[in-house]
């Protein structure tokens, strides 16, 4: 077998599926995407997110049921939440809130 063919076969082997992206990376990427989204305009109000069938965390749910204007509904509450701080810095962070992205990013 010549070197070209041999190296091609070696390179074409499938990637190892057990390697996962670190949860800190996922958290940082998510935070960066939200910053980029907010630079374009307000986030979708929480009520619309819920109507689209996506879950809200307990804090977002509280905001969503309050009679509040769109600006309040569009605010990204993760910015002021300890879950984001932990998620961006700690692997397997002790965050267990249901429907919290930073909790769902953990590789547990």
């Amino acid at each position, binding site marked *: *077998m*010549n*070197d*070209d*063919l*041999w*190296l*091609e*076969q*070696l*390179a074409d*082997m499938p*990637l*190892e*599926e057990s*390697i*996962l*992206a*670190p949860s800190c*990376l*996922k958290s*940082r*990427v*998510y935070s*960066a*995407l*939200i910053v*980029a*989204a*907010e630079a*374009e*305009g*307000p*986030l*979708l109000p929480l009520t*619309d*997110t819920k109507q*689209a069938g*996506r*879950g*809200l965390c307990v804090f977002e749910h509280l905001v969503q049921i309050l009679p509040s204007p769109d600006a309040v509904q569009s605010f*990204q509450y*993760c910015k002021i939440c300890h879950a984001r701080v932990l998620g961006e810095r700690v692997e397997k962070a002790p965050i267990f809130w249901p*429907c919290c*992205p930073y909790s*769902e*990013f953990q590789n547990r």
Partner: protein
Amino acid sequence: MPVTLPTTLDSDLALAQAVVARDRKAAAEFVQTHSDPLYRYVRSRLQPRFEFVDDIVQEVFLTAWKSLPRYRGEAPLRSWLLGIARHKVEDHYRERLRNLPLPDDAEDTLPLSGPDLDATLDQARAQQAAGKILTALPEVYRLVLLWRYWEHRSAEEMAERTGKTPKAIERLLARARQEFRVLWLTPSV
């Protein structure tokens, strides 16, 4: 009455549209669904320089986010993202190769005959061995091998993108292949 089930492409398009609509939870799903395969791909192409991986993965997502309004669901979102990742990886190769000094002209290389892959190792061990050898190679050899064989680019394409001559790239590839083969046949590596 026939029931039409939503396809992966439909759900990919729906997710993309929700991200474009600035639905924060859709953005989280986008990251959660696609970060592992993207990370695996970028990591495999940058080995062993893992310090660049996180930045490139983040760049891929941000570039994708800007381009999502143009995503039409004609290909799976994962393939579309991997296409962006491939561009970022090749940009990395190009930048590194442009800045690295090339070794002196190669002497005549050994005859081109690689070991028989099937006969030597099973797939997982072969992959592991290849990773170790790539790690042990000088960066310039590692980059040309990854670019040529893992990304399937021709020497001409690599030359065009790095501003070097095709002959210089061919020589570099020949030396890189030779070094790779020598290490492959060295039991301690």
